[in-house]
């Protein structure tokens, strides 16, 4: 009997025959935490009585959620993490480097890895064929000390994606559509595995967008096979030697298979206050938007900024709509400057923030006012998410976001392209 990607990776890392439903103990290749979950992780690590990390060069801390820090409470948390890194010798990515998940994809993850992070969007690295999943601070702390953790091997749902995206439609619309179809708990405790000719032809950036949002359907992981695209992506970052090909067995057993033909998709938006509350962008025409945010671990990559810049080139943001842009990493910021995207966006009226999470969790840099609405390229629109429980968050693609910034109301990007 063949194995799914999740079963393959967990078999290898646990040294056992890992089948869906089994409980296994697996070696972890990378453990990380960020600045809002890291301090509790450090305290739990110390409370557990550990004196050293199991593997300092495979442990990373990221200062990205509050970067730079907006207040002394968070500044003190940053101090604590810097000090812990000095003491233990782990990696630390200080303010300005970018969002943990983007840096993990660019610099740390490899196909076949088991990665755990004290952040739910750790699933992003599934785009590279790593079994990557979010955990809380205590689980993360124990993994820091032991270099391993326990898993229940998930059942897998196969998503077969075929066809060509129509103009103005992309990976974000696909994943929002899927979550709308299966619901915010449609994949709880399970892994989503993506395949099909559309996936085969996808670059790494949209794969990361899709893997990132697997958790919004409750999934433990969102997995892609490691293929030529993965190999080229790693090679482009000077990490070609980290490549190994990884495919599921053809006779692997899936809980269910869902087929999606992307030729039928249209620009899609999640409405407040749950991700699975989807509608088509054109159905929401007339909904006024005061803030547009382009960035995050979902859609803050170079391709995303390129899409937005192409739509906004020579245009201006609507006078009653502010546009905030935050590249996901320093590398992306530099490349976007070089390509002219940053200049185009600023000329259109955008405020460009340093690489990091920006206003995504409502700590700083774009907190919404009472009754205001935001169209964001992020992954979550829960009540209160962007700092105000009396505000409204819609989620969409970079193209929908750029079009919305121009008109000041939710807009199907095909109208302005």
């Amino acid at each position, binding site marked *: 009997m063949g194995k799914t990607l999740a079963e393959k990776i967990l078999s290898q890392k646990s040294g056992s025959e890992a089948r869906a439903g089994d*409980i*296994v*103990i697996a070696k972890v290749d990378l453990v990380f935490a960020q600045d*809002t*979950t890291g*301090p*509790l992780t450090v305290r*739990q690590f110390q*409370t*557990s*009585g550990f004196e050293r990390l199991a593997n300092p060069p495979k442990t990373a801390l990221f200062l990205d*959620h*509050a970067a730079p820090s*907006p*207040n*002394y*409470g*968070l500044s*003190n*948390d940053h101090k*604590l993490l810097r000090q812990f890194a000095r003491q233990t010798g782990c990696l630390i990515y200080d303010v300005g480097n970018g969002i943990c998940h983007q840096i993990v994809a660019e610099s740390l993850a490899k196909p076949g890895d088991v990665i755990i*992070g*004290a*952040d*739910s969007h*750790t699933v992003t690295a599934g785009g590279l064929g790593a079994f990557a999943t*979010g*955990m*809380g*601070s*205590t*689980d993360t702390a*124990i993994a820091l*000390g*032991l270099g*391993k*953790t*326990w898993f*229940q091997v998930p059942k897998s749902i196969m998503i077969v994606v075929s066809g060509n995206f129509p103009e103005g439609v992309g990976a974000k619309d696909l994943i929002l559509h899927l979550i709308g179809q299966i619901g*915010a*708990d449609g994949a*709880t*405790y399970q892994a989503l595995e993506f395949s099909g000719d559309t996936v085969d032809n996808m670059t790494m950036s949209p794969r990361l967008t899709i893997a990132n949002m697997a958790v919004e359907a*409750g999934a*433990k992981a969102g997995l892609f096979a490691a293929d030529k695209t993965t190999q080229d992506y790693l090679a482009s970052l000077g990490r070609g030697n980290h490549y190994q090909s990884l495919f599921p067995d053809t006779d692997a057993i899936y809980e269910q298979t869902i087929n999606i033909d992307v030729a039928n998709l249209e620009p899609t938006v999640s409405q407040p206050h*749950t991700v699975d509350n989807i509608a088509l962008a054109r159905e929401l025409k007339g909904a006024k938007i005061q803030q547009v945010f382009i960035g995050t671990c979902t859609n803050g990559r170079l391709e995303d900024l390129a899409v937005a810049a192409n739509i906004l080139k020579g245009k201006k943001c609507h006078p009653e709509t502010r546009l905030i842009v935050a590249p996901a990493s320093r590398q992306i910021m530099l490349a976007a400057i070089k390509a002219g995207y940053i200049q185009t966006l600023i000329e259109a009226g955008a405020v460009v923030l340093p690489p990091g999470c920006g206003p995504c*969790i*409502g*700590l700083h840099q774009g*907190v919404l006012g009472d009754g205001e609405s935001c169209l964001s390229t992020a992954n*979550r629109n*829960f*009540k*209160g*998410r962007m*700092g*105000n*429980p009396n505000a409204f968050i819609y989620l969409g693609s970079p193209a929908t976001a750029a079009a919305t910034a121009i008109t000041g109301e939710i807009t199907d990007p095909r109208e302005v392209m």
Partner: protein
Amino acid sequence: MLTGRAFKFGDNISTDHIIPGRLAHLRSNLPELAKHVMEDADPTFASRVKAGDFIVAGNNFGLGSSREHAPLVIKMAGVRAILAKSVARIFFRNAINLGLPVLICNTALIDDGDELEVDLAAGTVKDATNGNQLTFSKIPEVMLRILDEGGLIPYIKKYGDFKV
């Protein structure tokens, strides 16, 4: 046997409802943070909840962020257990790791304010107000053992490793 009052919530209560990101500056000041427990789901909850009470929710409780502060502030409020139709994966593990039981049962049969009697060993919940008797699903053995030790840290301190 645990006894206490039910505080009823609906489906899809996220970790942002439980303890929102905007309060991240209080995460190293837990007593202050805990004053805001469940604030965006029910702003009166923190002032009404008493030690021994239960949170009773619908589907997918605790979805969203991995922040362990969510079950932590619930535990600090004195909540003895969470009862839900279903619970998000990361939240489930986090709660058990802190020694806070999460019981999956048909919470439609419980009303807000009902007096509950929970028997962890027998796997049953009795609603003393309306007389309904519920059973909750078994949780994996490894989680039961973590719960038995009062959480993951005491468990690891005792065994030094995972025992599965």
